[in-house]
């Protein structure tokens, strides 16, 4: 079963009078529970494809279906709602809410979902424990290392039981051992919760962890390898 389907995706950016073709007729399908890396040089369209899959941006043409929901037929609020319930994001620069503690950052998504406080708190603590931050509940992002912040970001992405987690170069700002630790955690979540992970990356280590690597070049799929 395909958790994500991209059919003939095209996207062009306008930078002043210059048109930049970011994606050209990309068609891909992702299996539920897969751990996929989108690789390729800068400007190849990795981040654009992630943004379109996550409903942060819309394709000029083509169709994206996430867990049976087509983004192109939705308004902004409906897309926000779909992101809230089906998609988790992990960003390169962590992007935690600076005024909230680690626990509150994780809780925030469940707050938006309208879960009761006690359940929110329990689930947030459980997931922070799982990513090894059991002593860091009350720390604000500024009081955490990069690796710790990224683990909070992973916890935030996973806590609402999304269908997919999209991670845009999640290890780019981390040293290799921290990055490896983070990948272990994400792989563990992927296997334990059967959540689909799609990364954009330059990092060979990420590609080593992936069970499928899709190479993009000039906005097109150049190679698509399933490793196991």
């Amino acid at each position: 079963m395909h958790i994500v389907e991209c059919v003939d995706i095209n996207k062009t950016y306008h930078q002043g009078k210059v048109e930049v073709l970011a994606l050209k007729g990309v068609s891909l399908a992702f299996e539920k529970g897969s751990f996929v890396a989108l690789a390729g040089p800068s400007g190849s369209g990795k981040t654009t494809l992630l943004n379109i899959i996550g409903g942060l941006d819309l394709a000029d043409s083509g169709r994206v279906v996430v867990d049976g929901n087509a983004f192109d037929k939705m308004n902004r609020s409906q897309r926000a709602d779909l992101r809230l319930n089906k998609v988790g994001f992990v960003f390169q620069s962590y992007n935690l809410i600076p005024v909230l503690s680690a626990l509150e950052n994780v809780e925030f998504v469940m707050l938006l979902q309208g879960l009761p406080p006690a359940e929110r708190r329990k689930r947030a603590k459980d997931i922070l424990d799982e990513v090894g931050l059991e002593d860091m509940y009350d720390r604000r992002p500024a009081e955490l290392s990069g690796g710790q912040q990224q683990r909070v970001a992973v916890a935030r992405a996973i806590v609402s039981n999304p269908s997919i987690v999209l991670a845009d170069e999640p290890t780019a700002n981390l040293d290799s051992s921290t990055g490896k630790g983070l990948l272990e955690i994400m792989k563990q979540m992927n296997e334990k919760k059967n959540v689909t992970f799609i990364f954009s990356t330059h990092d060979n280590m990420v590609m080593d962890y992936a069970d499928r690597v899709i190479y993009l070049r000039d906005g097109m799929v150049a190679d698509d390898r399933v490793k196991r």
Partner: protein
Amino acid sequence: MAWRNIWRNPRRTILTISAVAFASILLVFMLSFQFGSYDAMINSSVKIQTGHLQIQAKGYQDKQSIQRVVPHPDEVGEIVNSLPEVDAYTFRAKAFSLVSSKERTYGVVVTGIDPAGEAEVSTLKNSIRRGRYLSQDDQNRESPQALVGKLLARNLRVGLGDELTVLGQGRDGSIAATVVKIKGIYSSGLDAFDRNAIHIPLKLFQDIYSMQGAVHQVVVVAKSLKDVSEIKKTVSAGIKNIDTKHFLTVLDWEALMPGLRQAIEMDLVSGVIYYLILIMVVAFSILNTFLMAIFERTQEFGVLMAIGTSPGRLTRLLLIESLSMTMIGIITGVVIGCLVTGYFQIHGIDISGASELLGQYGISGRLHPKLSLLSATSGPAVVLMITFLAALYPALKVRGLKPVEALTYV
């Protein structure tokens, strides 16, 4: 979260809250001061001139003809006297006449007053600067006595004990003439009043001017300014029984002193313009704070949208932040404003610097602001409304943000 966001930049937040608080303090105090000064102006003017209400013959206010009289003042007096809201009342009769001293002649308004009643309703007795006030015995025509305004006395070049010849026309068309002796010279502070009026006992007036027991005004002073409309309503209804031909009318201070009302309205309008400018400055401060917040937090808004925050929820978040800041400022401002105003309400403000101007309204010495629910809340409520509108623009602007652009905003 909104609360924590407010305190991200404490210095900016404190400055913004201070601006709102300062505006609120100023508005509470200034509005109370204005209302206090209006009350003082009204009360002083009614005490010197008109009273809060008058019962007159219809048309007398516009054309003060001696023939337009209240023919049976005692009956009107009974109605007025029966009202608990009435503090005091008296009768007056007026006629334009020529008054001559040995050297000069002036046209003045001769007013017949009941010395005891007049002392209850007006400040005339307390305005005597030289000599003495009229007594009930002065109703005796054998030795008619008069009170003269200070400026008129100066113009006529007369002093205490000097005689004045009064010459006018009686109600029946006959010649009204008498000689009065100056018993007292008053200074009310109102130049127009002090320049062209003399007061004689009512009975003397009625005899000289052939009034046949009639008067021109039944002057009523209410216990409180807010009782005036109720008294007017009751008296209007009451006099219908004794005034079957509808010759009489009840006028309140606004009708009796339209100039004073206009002066108050003008002052209020200019005050409101000044306050609106002040509030706009505060609103721009709030607008600036929130536009800065949007620029600084654009990437964060992108994250919030990415993880599923709806545009409406983001707008609400920003509006809660702005309302929280404004409310802190307003509550602080109202509390401090009320305390400051309350202090000056008790102790008064020295207005000797503006005594000449305010003296024209009968105000002198100290002015007391009047703190009320209206003066304490109306200004701050407008601040709240306008700052909310100012915050609405950036809050709505956030709705237009595209997540992918916001996430990459630098």
